[in-house]
């Protein structure tokens, strides 16, 4: 068991957590009878996807995808997670950032000439920006669509006097057999 945790869960901990959170959300979506609880499940599901995407973009020892003020890459972090994992990989070439910014005296020139061809950024030291971009919009759009869902729930409550799925279905069946 301990071996299993060490080999399979520990290195992929974020991914395990994302699957578990996602399944909690999925369970709520299917099993819960109350529409608001279903929406809560949907939000939990969404959160799991966000965690998954952000986890994909993580690089050990890397920093946020924001460069230094003149496009320099940020200083390397000494702290690395999961040190034992890296030993299996031979490519540990990325120690510190390429020392491109010998002196800061060039920043005046940087601004006037609008190109900085000599800047070299080591991609291993900067987290993947793409998942961040995608999730940034997904979060706000998620809030907006959740608002629409809540508005529809309010409408349903006004119409049926209930948010319980089975009660609503009974109401619909009753009115259908009447008409």
């Amino acid at each position, binding site marked *: 068991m301990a071996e299993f945790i060490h080999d399979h869960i520990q290195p992929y901990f974020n991914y395990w957590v994302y699957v578990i959170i996602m*399944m909690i959300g999925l369970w709520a979506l299917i099993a819960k009878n109350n529409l608001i609880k279903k929406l809560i499940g949907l939000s939990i599901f969404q959160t799991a996807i966000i965690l998954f995407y952000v986890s994909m973009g993580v690089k050990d020892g890397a920093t946020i995808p924001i460069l230094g003020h003149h496009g320099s890459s940020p200083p390397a972090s000494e702290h690395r997670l999961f040190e034992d994992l890296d030993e299996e990989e031979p490519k540990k070439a990325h120690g510190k950032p390429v020392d491109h910014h010998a002196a800061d005296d060039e920043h005046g020139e940087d601004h006037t000439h609008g190109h900085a061809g000599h800047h070299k950024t080591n991609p291993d030291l900067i987290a993947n920006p793409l998942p961040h971009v995608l999730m940034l*919009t997904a979060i706000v759009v998620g809030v907006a669509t959740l608002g629409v869902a809540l508005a529809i729930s309010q409408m349903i409550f006004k119409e049926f006097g209930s948010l319980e799925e089975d009660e609503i279905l009974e109401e619909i069946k009753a009115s259908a057999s009447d008409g």
Partner: protein
Amino acid sequence: MLSKVFATIAVAITGSILLYGVSDFPAFGDPHSPANAGVPGSESVSLYFIEESYKDTKVPNIVTSVLADYRGYDTMFETVVIFAAGMAIFAILRVVGNKEETAAKAAEEDSFTNGDHNRIIVGTTVRIVVPVIQLFALYVVAHGHHSPGGGFQGGVILGASFIIIALAENLNAALRRLSELNYVRLAAIGIFIYAAFGIMAQVLGSNFLDYGALQPIFMTDGPEMARSHSMLGVEIGVAFTVTAIMFAIYANLASRGQLVKGL
């Protein structure tokens, strides 16, 4: 009961398949995983963004430059989605022209001016805190390409500052600062600003949302700074729409579309 059994079975099957798939994932934090570095022969586009985006756009925040420039078309329609969500809530919930409600609204206004003693502490605190929140929101928008932030984040904070007024006092107090007409206008203006940057680039003979073409308008040295400035403009548009829609969602949901009383 049956649905719970069914849900448990479905969740157990799906979950175990996903967990089985997880064991084939690249290691967590591996900078050379396909998502981070691509596969041999096909480099991940994120490497291009990390290495070249500063040269292309002069924006240190890679997330902002990807969001507002390289993926500008996508972001524009994300903003349209938010706008459409706000309009959908308006269409679903909003009740207009109910005389009973306007009477209730007047009564509510009265009770506010007469002073609600329970809200004196919260109300005073909020009145002091709200300008700080709004200033911070504007900073987040304006500084989005040098530090974490941008239109979406700043817009949400700005929207939250109106919601906090509505929570601490009442909905009318917030609507007096940002009326319904104004927030609908603000939401539309936001998208208009975004689209205007795209169309301006077209007018100047380039592709839609190719900000580099706006160089003569911004009178910058190169297309890079024009792209940087355009990103700021586009983010401001996004912030307008997000602010308005966040407040619209709250106002309509809290008052069941009547825009009186609130919670």
